[in-house]
């Protein structure tokens, strides 16, 4: 049983702006029947270029219907410029909250809106539309089951600050069927995190000059961003216990705690990451 809040239930039971629109200025449809949800969005613009009317039709679960309904309320009255900045987080904000596993419903709303804006700009021969349209098509398909591209994954990860492949599955469905692409997704995220954190180009010898507290904070940061998500992906976790000189003491948790390969994990993953990001002198021990 999903615990949908009252707002989600209200939008599901009394969806706003349902239906077709014969004279729409822009139409877009995302998702498809085989994926289990689909959203068709119609936009009408007034002379000032504001969205004067909006309609939707959705095939999907309660949260897909609620997300679509919330989206229509959100964008009515916006200019296309404003609407193009709407993200799935705005949809979730209107609904109060959605279960993590249902975040992909809000992402579907965002994608339908972006596609409708692109459709409008394309019809009017405007620039910008092409870019948006192209951005989605340029990417490489990463998840074959649900047809999700690396561009979509990066987008959603950036907007929602996602760190793990499991989160990407919740937000885009990618990796949610056969699971073959999960490692690929994690690589994309790791690259992205490295870019955004800018840690890749930080000089390594700078670390030894830090105070112990700063060192611990930096180690904690690498554990949080680079190490723990990988372990959690396999059902484990890790905790930083202490720093003694250049020896980092950690405790492995979850399945890692009893894993026969724990020593290997410490050396090949934990120590390797700390060496890569912070200092080649660091060694890791189990506390």
């Amino acid at each position, binding site marked *: 049983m*999903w615990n949908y809040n009252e707002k989600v239930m209200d939008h*599901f039971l009394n*969806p706003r702006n349902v239906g077709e629109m014969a004279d729409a200025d822009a139409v877009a*449809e995302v998702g498809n029947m*085989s994926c*289990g*949800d*689909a959203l*068709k969005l119609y936009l009408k613009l007034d002379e000032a270029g504001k969205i004067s009317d909006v309609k939707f039709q959705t095939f999907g*679960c309660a949260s897909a219907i609620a997300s679509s309904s919330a989206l229509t309320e959100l964008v009515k009255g916006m200019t296309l410029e404003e609407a193009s900045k709407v993200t799935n987080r705005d949809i979730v904000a209107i609904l109060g909250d959605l279960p993590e596993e249902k975040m992909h419903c809000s992402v579907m709303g965002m994608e339908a809106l972006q596609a409708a804006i692109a459709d409008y700009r394309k019809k009017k021969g405007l620039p910008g539309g092409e870019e948006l349209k192209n951005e989605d098509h340029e990417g490489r398909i990463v998840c074959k089951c649900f047809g999700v591209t690396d561009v979509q994954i990066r987008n959603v990860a950036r907007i929602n600050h996602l760190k793990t492949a499991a989160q990407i599955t919740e937000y885009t469905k990618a990796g949610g069927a056969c699971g073959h692409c999960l490692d690929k997704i994690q690589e994309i995220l790791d690259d992205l995190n490295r870019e955004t954190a800018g840690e890749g180009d930080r000089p390594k010898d700078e670390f030894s000059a830090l105070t112990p507290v700063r060192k611990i904070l930096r180690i904690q940061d690498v554990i949080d961003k680079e190490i723990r998500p990988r372990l959690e992906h396999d059902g484990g976790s890790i905790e930083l216990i202490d720093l003694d000189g250049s020896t980092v003491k950690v405790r492995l948790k979850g399945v890692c705690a009893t894993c026969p390969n724990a020593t290997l994990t410490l050396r090949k993953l934990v120590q390797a990451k700390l060496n890569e990001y912070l200092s080649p002198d660091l060694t890791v021990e189990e506390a």
Partner: protein
Amino acid sequence: MIRKAVYFDNNATTRVAPEVRDAMLPFLDEFYANPSSIHRFGGQLAACVEEARAKMAALLGAEQPSEILFTSCGTESDSSALLSAASTCPKRRKIVTTTVEHPAILNRVRDLARHGYRVTEIPVDGKGRLDMDFVRTAIDDDTLIVSIMWANNETGNVYPVEELSEMAHSVGALFHTDAVQAVGKVPFRLSSMPGIDMLSLSGHKVHAPKGVGALYIRRGVRFHPFVLGGHQESGRRAGTENVASIVGMGKAAELALAGIEEENTRVRALRDKLEKAVLETIPCVRVNGDPEHRLPNTTNISFEYIEGESILMLLDLDNICASSGSACTTGSLEPSHVLRAMGVPYTAAHGAIRFSFSRYNTEEEVDFTLSKLPGIMEKLRAISPYWSRRNK
């Protein structure tokens, strides 16, 4: 406060029968001794466990009560059967099962595959029927065990286990069946079905409590225990007996044996009434499964162009409980493996709803549900882009 529900989800679990509860209560109170103890107090409880064993043997038509092993659930029974086969016949390296088994079987055999066993999953046709020619070629003299469910939990399809078990025996393979959904709904006469070596069942599907199950092991079939430890259950399943639940399951077995007639007449009629009325009153619906060979209590109906979770949510607002093969209801992203194995088109698989009945259901409940269903489908179809496209 839990609301009283119109409960059509009896393949998920059933209500504990009041008679079962009453039979159990003394064992949660003054009869607390350990059945393995030497004192008479314990000995009395051991006798109660044996009485329950005899009742379960009677329900299954087993030759003798000692063929029944009490476990914690159907899943444990399944794992015990498969792992015992693997450890007692180490030379054979192939396992044959079906694509529509319960995860209790599928995930166990897939794990065995990771340990070097070859696994063949028999495909099914559009009605969920096994491809018997495929079975014939799949079972060979390297086959350790054939495990095929008696009845499917999602569609209610009943499989020809007697014929299948004979095919397994003809090459010297063991035959196991997961009969969790069949018990109490179809008559059993295992004493005259010599091909069935092992059979799993679960208490909570037949009005006993959750947390108790059984494994039938035909006399003479070698067995290696799954749970190791003390000498309980003649050394075949360690762990202090769950006496209250075992007694409850014994009582449930007695009631089930007496109730098989009702399952196949009154309960069947309720199921048929619901199914027939849905087919007549709601457009674009289809029944998934094999109506010719089906449990009397189950119907799996696809409401095309809409999605199952939405249907269940709206049913739930009217306090009607059913379940769905839809992806969204479980948090998994793919629709039911059973419906996919049957090749049910996506238009229908996402909107598949299972109604499963028990003897506690009434005609009023069926009528109430029938009064609600058309409105629910209209509401959701009015939102669906596929429905409006279909009608153009």
